[in-house]
């Protein structure tokens, strides 16, 4: 029987952070993820690396954690963090009385704020509403959730950690109130196998309630759905927040080539309930226009939703009122040793959550090695010579993009043989080359086109997969990479997944694009999506 010491359940930021921490402390661990890495909440948020300013007035503790982790992540995750600045903007509709206490709270949390004139703010961001009243700078930043998870996973693997994607936990075994192992199903070949371990960490995010139930335990968690809009281009180079008590549709985050507007908050039916609606889109737009009046004119690329794993004990608020702090439950208190759950929190504090969780596990196991995750970068900065070499091969200025996406794998692309550099672009919208796709496809955790999408942004730009998915499938078929589905199914599944985020925003140029896409695939490959429309 297979065995390891620790099993971490959940391939989001928290789980992968725990795996990296355990591996760096020399504890053998396996991470199990039911889908692909980062396919849950960690990739379904606005991409904000909080300064803490958003929580300062309501939750000082959370704000302090944010600013500390923000500083650490800028240092260890340079590839994943875009060093924007945040602006907090008081619009016509916001209460000016909120400003003074908010400023005081930021100061208490150690968050540096600086007021700038409305004129200066509009000179920096000309698309901002002309009738805004006050603007403050804060040290917000952008973070790529996909990339953060991947770079953590690669780092963890270098320290000996093991990642198994598309492996679903179907049973948790214990003897005399002590965990002995679990049953795992490989969803790709549907084979089940037992895996013995000493300790299980439940970091399954919105699914952690279900995992706890497998162990006969209960956690008070409510999946809380947040819907977000992705716009086709970057119309702001700052993160722009409304200066008021956190509410829906009050934050814009530039993210690579796009801009994201978030968020809503509503209780989800179940952890997988992430299909957004046109009503949510219209609501977000009508809120977003207070900051950017032209928001109706900008083309929406897609809409997506994620579920926050909010901690909601029986006597507490749900939704916006629920705490954004994280919670660790040691189920030994409830009679099951070797099992702990972690949930709540924010992506910004994922490393801290991992550290606290790993501290607990190590204490149980008698491991005394201290945490080092705050000091060691996730990936090394590429050497100047490597970047220069890449600059000569890749499309103009594309080297920086690729270096940030691939982290430590980047030199592999650059060192490919000269006669077949693979520099041809498969995805023009996000500048993804064939070499990059082939490299990611060869990774053992990659089984579907969307795994490639998470790592490279293939299919996430203007055309939403129209041009690149067919090219990628062609390249992968030719290079003989073993995929979980035949090429036609791979293509169909990928396009259908893109369509899910397009359907609620079918107007303007995006409707034209979809019609073009439909005609193209219908006429050439007889793929019309009709078979996949459940409702």
């Amino acid at each position, binding site marked *: 029987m297979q065995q390891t010491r620790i099993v971490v359940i959940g391939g989001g930021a928290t789980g992968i952070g725990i795996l990296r921490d355990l591996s760096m402390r020399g504890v053998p661990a396996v991470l199990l993820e039911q889908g692909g890495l980062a396919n849950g909440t960690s990739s379904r948020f606005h991409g904000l690396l909080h300064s803490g300013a958003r929580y300062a007035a309501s939750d000082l503790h959370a704000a302090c954690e944010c600013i500390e982790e923000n500083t650490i992540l800028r240092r260890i995750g340079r590839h994943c963090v875009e060093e924007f600045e945040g602006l907090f903007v008081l619009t016509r509709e916001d209460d000016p009385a909120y400003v003074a206490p908010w400023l005081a709270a930021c100061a208490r949390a150690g968050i540096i704020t600086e007021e700038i004139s409305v004129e200066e703010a509009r000179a920096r961001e*000309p698309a901002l509403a002309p009738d805004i009243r006050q603007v403050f700078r804060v040290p917000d930043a952008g973070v790529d959730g996909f990339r953060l998870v991947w770079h953590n996973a690669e780092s963890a693997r270098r320290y000996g950690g093991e990642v198994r994607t598309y492996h679903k936990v179907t049973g948790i075994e214990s003897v005399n109130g002590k965990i002995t192992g679990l049953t795992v199903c490989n969803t790709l070949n549907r084979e089940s196998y037992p895996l013995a371990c000493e300790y299980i960490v439940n970091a399954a995010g919105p699914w952690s309630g279900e995992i706890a139930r497998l162990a006969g335990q209960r956690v008070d968690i409510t999946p809380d759905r947040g819907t977000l809009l992705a716009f086709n281009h970057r119309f702001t180079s700052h993160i722009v927040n409304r200066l008021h008590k956190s509410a829906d549709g009050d934050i814009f985050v530039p993210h*690579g080539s796009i801009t994201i507007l978030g968020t809503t908050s509503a209780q989800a039916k179940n952890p997988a309930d992430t299909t957004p609606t046109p009503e949510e889109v219209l609501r977000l737009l009508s809120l977003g226009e207070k900051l950017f009046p032209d928001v109706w004119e900008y*083309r929406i690329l897609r809409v997506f939703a994620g579920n926050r794993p909010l901690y909601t004990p029986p006597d507490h608020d749900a939704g916006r009122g629920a705490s954004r702090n994280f919670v660790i439950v040691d189920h030994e208190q409830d009679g099951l040793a070797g099992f702990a759950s972690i949930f709540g929190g924010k992506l910004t504090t994922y490393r801290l959550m991992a550290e606290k969780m790993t501290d607990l596990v190590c204490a149980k196991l008698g491991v005394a090695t201290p945490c080092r995750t705050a000091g060691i970068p996730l990936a090394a900065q590429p050497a100047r010579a490597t970047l220069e070499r890449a600059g000569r091969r890749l499309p*103009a200025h594309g080297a920086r993009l690729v270096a940030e996406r691939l982290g430590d794998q980047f030199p592999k692309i650059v060192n490919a043989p000269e006669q077949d550099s693979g520099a041809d672009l498969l995805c023009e919208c996000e500048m993804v080359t064939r070499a990059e796709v082939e490299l990611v496809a060869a990774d053992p955790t990659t089984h579907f086109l969307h795994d490639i999408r998470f790592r490279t942004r293939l299919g996430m*730009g*203007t055309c939403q997969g129209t041009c690149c998915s067919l090219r990628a499938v062609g390249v992968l078929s030719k290079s003989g990479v073993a995929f979980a589905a035949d090429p036609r199914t791979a293509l169909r599944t990928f396009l259908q997944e893109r369509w899910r985020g397009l359907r609620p925003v079918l107007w303007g*140029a995006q409707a034209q694009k979809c019609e*073009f896409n439909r005609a193209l695939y219908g006429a050439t490959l007889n793929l019309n999506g009709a078979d996949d429309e459940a409702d």
Partner: protein
Amino acid sequence: MNMNVRIPQPDRCIACATCVAVCPVAQNCPDFPGPRMMGPARQRFRLMGMGEDEASHYCANCKNCDIACPGDVPVSAFIMRAKAEICKKNFPKLRDWILAHGEVLAHCLRFIPAVFKNFGMTFAPARLLLDAIGIARKASLPNFAPQAFRARLARLAQPNLSRAVVFFPGCFVDTYEPESGLDIVAVLNRAGYKVIVPGTTDDSGAFVCCGLPMVANGFWQDARDNARRNLKTLAAWAAKGMPILTACPSCALMIGKDYAEYFPALIAPGQSSSLVDVCDFLIGCVERGELALPAAPQKVETVFYHAPCHSRALGIGLPGLDLLREIPGIQAEYADSGCCGISGSYGFKKDKYPIAMRVGAPLFEAMRQSGATLCASECGTCRVQMRHGGGKQTVHPVSVLRRYLG
């Protein structure tokens, strides 16, 4: 660049790649990533603060992308702005300055007799020198006219006519082909219009180069300065209710369409900077009975007609072809063979000459296949390229008409 101008957005592009399919450069130069990538796709990266792709210099600004785009995306304008950004950082080559500022150069050289200037462009050692600065040795450069169009017009006694039009000659007619301009003046006189070319006697109030060669070579500010001067002159004449004509489709496109796209802040609200195409105007003269066409001769002559890309980009049909078809005794044969490749000064450049010749190859072949001995096209540099690649006499459609009017 004017900071008040809204940054052009890439949102209308649906990535259909029609522009790539029709781009003559993309079809003939694998190093050019194509208009979609260089225009709207790259715009998303520009907004991320990423620098420009040097490959934008391959764009010939022929505007076939703009013509083909179903979404009305200003594809070529994105690329022209990109060239301007690149030129802000690295000052362009001497060669590009010369090609962009033909008018300034001609003005500086005006006291040197044309025979010497032209000797300099045909004499082998001189061509080696031009080759060294990047002008293709094989390219057929237009000859300087002994006297500029405006100088010849000043000495021409036009009949005393009650009606008048203003004529924007453009650099090519003014410097290299005054005969075409004089043909146009003669035909307009025959139709009962006196032709006014501002600045004929002195330079005050004269039109200047439309600025298109400057934009195409990255000299954005110079083009803007010229646009401001021309718009002022145009507004003054328009206020007098005078039709303003041009015979050059590129000047018409730059002034009538691109000024508003590139320099919106220069256009007064409600101002139209459109010029009237001279062929279009003459068709109107025929229809109004102002211009009587001669009776059909015994022998029908075939004229091979090529529509310049910039004519097609104007979106006014093909008035040059229509005019030829109005002439009794002329059978106009429409080439319909795409771009000739020259794109103003593009095909003169050493690194672009082979591309331009490949682009023009279908047109040259069509010319050779045609039984016509005379070819026609409105664009001056198209005519240069057609003579060079197709080896046949090529004139402006109005010159054909003048010949028939006798």
